[in-house]
């Protein structure tokens, strides 16, 4: 069954790597719903967060192809219940409209929106949340002359992840011994998608 998967990729910070990762999807005609690149908790290690709609079998294979890239340290994939995620959205609305209408104010409070800029001609609000939440506010604001809307890519944290510090140390060691090499998934046949 196709569902939303969030792929988290730890990489070196290398020019061209974005393309190398992106073409793994485009070559298979898979649409990337959302893609975010950012630093990670570790200096020099980059983190990609990629959202796609696919069946698990395909996602597993994609992760193996991603991990195969020389400058990729590790790729994980997770279903939505295994992660915490947020997307940030900005909404530009005419200031007179919202100043006049009490209803709008209630709406914004209900959605936890925050004003980023208030000008004579327009106001920009910001919310963070899941897609349905940010999308619902668009619908709600449309009658009041929503001028512009933009939403960021998903950023996600894996609930069960213990961070990447330990793993990185293993990757960095010059002569990795058996005990320190990242290998946990090889023990669990069902979850194998790494190495």
């Amino acid at each position, binding site marked *: 069954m196709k569902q939303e998967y969030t792929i988290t990729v730890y*990489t*070196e910070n290398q*020019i*061209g790597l974005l*393309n*190398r990762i992106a*073409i793994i999807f485009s*070559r298979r005609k898979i649409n990337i719903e959302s893609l975010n690149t950012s630093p990670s908790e570790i200096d020099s290690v980059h983190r990609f967060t990629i959202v796609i709609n696919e069946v698990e079998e395909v996602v*597993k*294979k994609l992760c*193996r*192809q991603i*991990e*195969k890239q*020389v*400058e*990729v*340290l590790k790729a994980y994939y997770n279903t939505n219940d295994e992660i915490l995620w947020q997307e940030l959205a900005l909404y530009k609305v005419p200031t007179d409209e919202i100043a006049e209408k009490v209803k709008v104010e209630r709406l914004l409070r209900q959605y936890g929106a925050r004003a980023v800029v208030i000008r004579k001609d327009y106001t920009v609000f910001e919310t963070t949340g899941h897609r349905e939440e940010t999308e619902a506010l668009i619908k709600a604001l449309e009658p009041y002359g929503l001028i512009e809307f933009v939403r960021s890519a998903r950023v996600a944290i894996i609930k069960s992840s213990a961070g990447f510090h330990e793993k*990185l140390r293993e*990757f*960095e060691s*010059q*002569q990795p011994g*058996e005990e320190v*090499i990242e*290998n946990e998934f*090889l*023990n669990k*046949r069902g979850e*194998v998608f*790494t*190495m």
Partner: protein
Amino acid sequence: MSTLEALEQQIETPVEKSISITGSEAVLKALIAEGVKTVFGYPGGAIMPIYDALYDYEDKLQHILVRHEQGGIHAAQGYARTSGNVGVVFATSGPGATNLVTGLADAQIDSTPIVAITGQVFAHLLGTDAFQEIDVINITTPVTKWNYQVTDATELPAILAKAFYIARSGRPGPVLIDITKNAQLQKFDFTGYEPCHHVRSYRPKPIIRKEYIEEAAQLINEAKKPFVIFGQGVILGRAEAEFKAFIEKGGFPAAWTILGLSALETDHPQNVGMLGMHGNYGPNVLTNECDVLIAIGMRFDDRVTGRLDKYAKQAKVIHLDIDPAEIDKNVKATVPVWGDCKETLPLLTELITKKEHTDWLQRFYSFTEEEQAIVIRKEMHPTVEEMSMAEVIDALNELTKGDAVIVTDVGQHQMVACRYAKFTQSKSNVTSGGLGTMGFALPAAIGAKYGAPERTVVAIIGDGGFQMTLQEMGTIMQFGAAVKILILNNNFLGMVRQWQELFHSKRYSFVDIQSPNFVTIAKGYGIEGQTVHHRDGLKNALKEMLDHDGAYLLEVMVGKENNVFPMVPQGCSVSEIRLQ
């Protein structure tokens, strides 16, 4: 001491103190430190500083000037395939670099270790549509294992060390290093070349899991009809001896993919032949009858598996591969044996029981009998006047005794050569398997000869494919690679014609290719040659070709509309293989 150890010792000695050199010199020093003896290439504006430096290195590095960059990279591939070392090719920016793309793709899909070095415009011109500027990094990303652009010479020693390490380690592949002209010209303090042994984000081989080895051994020991299928992994892993010990102890029948060909000598009693679309009858049919399928260093290409949902469904599958992304990619493995087969095979051999499997092996032999009766004998001894490709290969076998390196192009002659050529030693079959690149054979044979100078190299090529890269005869003329060119001329783009005959109601659409007088052209390049029209002259002509001191072109006119059989039609299961 193995050559590898010798090489490592050699490259382990850094220069005492720093010297000021140019980026170009650093490139050449790196190649020498990596043990590279021969480079194939073609100069041009953006790589001129490297060629200028090469002028002073002529005694240390042999440079073979090819006639087209595609020829350069195919030659580097041939060199890598027969020598087991990394092949190196130089090209200039723009069209020089784009001409490498086919070869990079070929090397990528066939796991051939290549370091391609391209010149690039000055760094300050990047992105300005400068003369001969193309985005070589992004063009080659899908067809390289790794690529990198150098704009500062100080990076060069470390980057080249990394390039060689990545190209040859793990599952080998092509690496491209693009060097801007300013970096080639830039002087910097060179403190010595240090080989690379580790890249933190790169794990060339997965750690071997004992439990999977044990599980695999148990499956094998319980098997009544175990069947080994092997690919180039055995050759790339230099595991031929370990492989043989494994199959001999277990008494397994073993069949090969065309890239695995020559890893096990043809005459070995357990060598039951070729897999796939034009493979042998037994191995294809019995794939769907074995109870344990042991796949070693092969990737279940669709030309091998035929229809996947009807492929070996009855069997438990043990898959040995160094590349974890191959496991479960096409065929689900019951037991995955990650790792370098040079290490995993001995572990497995130790745990398996010595067995014969005589009856099971006999099944293969009886299929061979049937194939002999219906296909092979007719092919080898045609009753018609026209010669068959198979009888040419058979006559060649007799003369070479299976000791030659056979390089093939793509098409019917390739399938026939792989089916019938005999081999006594590994690294003897060079062909474009995954990409099926017509035009591969001639340049690859040139490279193969430099990779194995003491061996006879025969390039078997179709009349179509030869016309794709025949300009490389110029390279032979100038540098003297003693390549034996055997053209099997059926006056058709034979393989496409065969498909048109079988699947497009004989509508021969643009497959009747005309050829020039190949022998005259060869003569123009100073290469001796002749054409044989009748089988009476065949053996002598082949002998003359092999005995001739230097390169030779022999054109053999073969039947125009012969088909390669057996055949697994596309979309069919391997057990639906047709004998006629």
